[in-house]
């Protein structure tokens, strides 16, 4: 497989992983009630 194809697949994987990480932190904030009123 050529280097551009590897880069493109890597890009897709990073995008999905980054999305999952952000989702994890969002759920953490949500469960801790950080988005609620003081």
């Amino acid at each position, binding site marked *: *497989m*050529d*280097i*551009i*194809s590897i880069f*493109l*697949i890597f*890009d*897709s*994987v*990073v*995008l*999905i992983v*980054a*999305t999952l990480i*952000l*989702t994890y*932190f*969002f759920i953490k*904030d949500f469960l801790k009630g*950080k*988005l*609620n*009123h003081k």
Partner: protein
Amino acid sequence: MEITLIDVAIISLYFILLAIVAYFAKKKIRGLTDYFLAGRRLTLPIFIATLVSTWYGGILGVGQYSYFSGLGNWLTQGIFYYIMALLFALFLAHKIRKSNLFTIPDQLEKFYDKKSRFLGSIFNFILVTPAPYILSLGVIFMFLFGVPKWIGIVIVLAILIAYTLYSGFYGVIYTDFLQFIFMMVGVALVVPFAIAKYGGFEFLTANLPETHLHITGGLTTQMILVWGFIAFWTFVDPGFYQRCYAAKDSKIPRKGILISIGFWILFDICTTFTGMYAFAANKAGHISIEILENGLPQPEVYMIFANSVLPPVIMGVFLIGIIATLMSTIDSFTLLGAMNISHDIYKNTFKPDATDKQVMKVTKIGIVITASFGATLALFFSGIISMWYTIGTVCISTLIVPVLGGFFIKTKKPPISGVLSMIAGAGVSTVWMINGYSNLSWGWPVYWFEIEPMYPGILAALLVYLFIIGTSKIYKYKGVV
């Protein structure tokens, strides 16, 4: 194109999920600040998700442009915006949050006067019209389900009005998180499947014109420059401002925008290469794409290509990704337009003593007005990119000078400078544009001296603005005022 029953079920599930999220978001609303800005409680993850998904709405236009110009799409619809977003993060974001306001017209009144707020509200309202995105969804519904465009638009309108009106900004940001996940995952899946089916870079080099693999994409310098100027949109984008106002503290907007740029880069690489693969697959005879009069491919190009590489279920996720990209922008823009009507025009221009309850009621009416106005425009316009371009050109020419001048020119500014520079920017860019559209060549407008309307528009606004500030200083110096 025919989609499988399972994909239809997945899309239906997505809409049910939206309704559930909106239902729970509604419970958090206790007052007007909650309805407008989610109580200014946005933490970093939700700030990023809502900004990334809202700012990225023109997915069908990006599909057309990446097909048309290859890597040129990444330059014109990506790189320019990263630079502007970076500048926004470094120089504007914390100032906006610290101002503790609600809207761009709020800023205009703070910098100038009520007349500037009023005029700014009108252009702000036009700038946030969800019309291009409603049109895109109408096109998608027509394409997927074979219903007429107007039926697609009415369906979108009904769903949108229901959950935005019901749950306000809380509903918008929570549904945005859901849409963000679908958007990222759905779009990220296409390129690996395309590589698996058609092959790697050698497939692209064999079937793409050389210009598609060049960063300019074979676009003229003038065309590249005008897209660069349209990226100034970022500085007056009400969605950016609203999210900065809603952040929990003044550090979140800067950090959030910087991380968002990372997401946009990763996402844009996927969308640009998907468009390029679509071109190559069409050239190689694997799919059939219709080319429009202006040289762009049909707006459905992404879906036609994705359908050729994705299996059922994954195709359903991809379609939700496309729909989510649009819905997340439409709901935010509709709420922003409604805030213009209720907060900027109703309360702060005509009825300063209005109670929060009255403002909330007018906001709900504003949601219906904004969505209906957008849908009406969507029914009469047919080109998504041309709509973007027209709205962007006139509204940016009008708003950018007084808004940025207000933030960065420290000297005292006469109140009239705001409204007059807006009139100059709007007037010149509109007249220039009307002239261009009355002389079409191959579907594209031909302008005076072949100069795009945004340049004379911004120049006129800037000259009037500086002239008024300059003359007021001279008069002061001479003791006239």
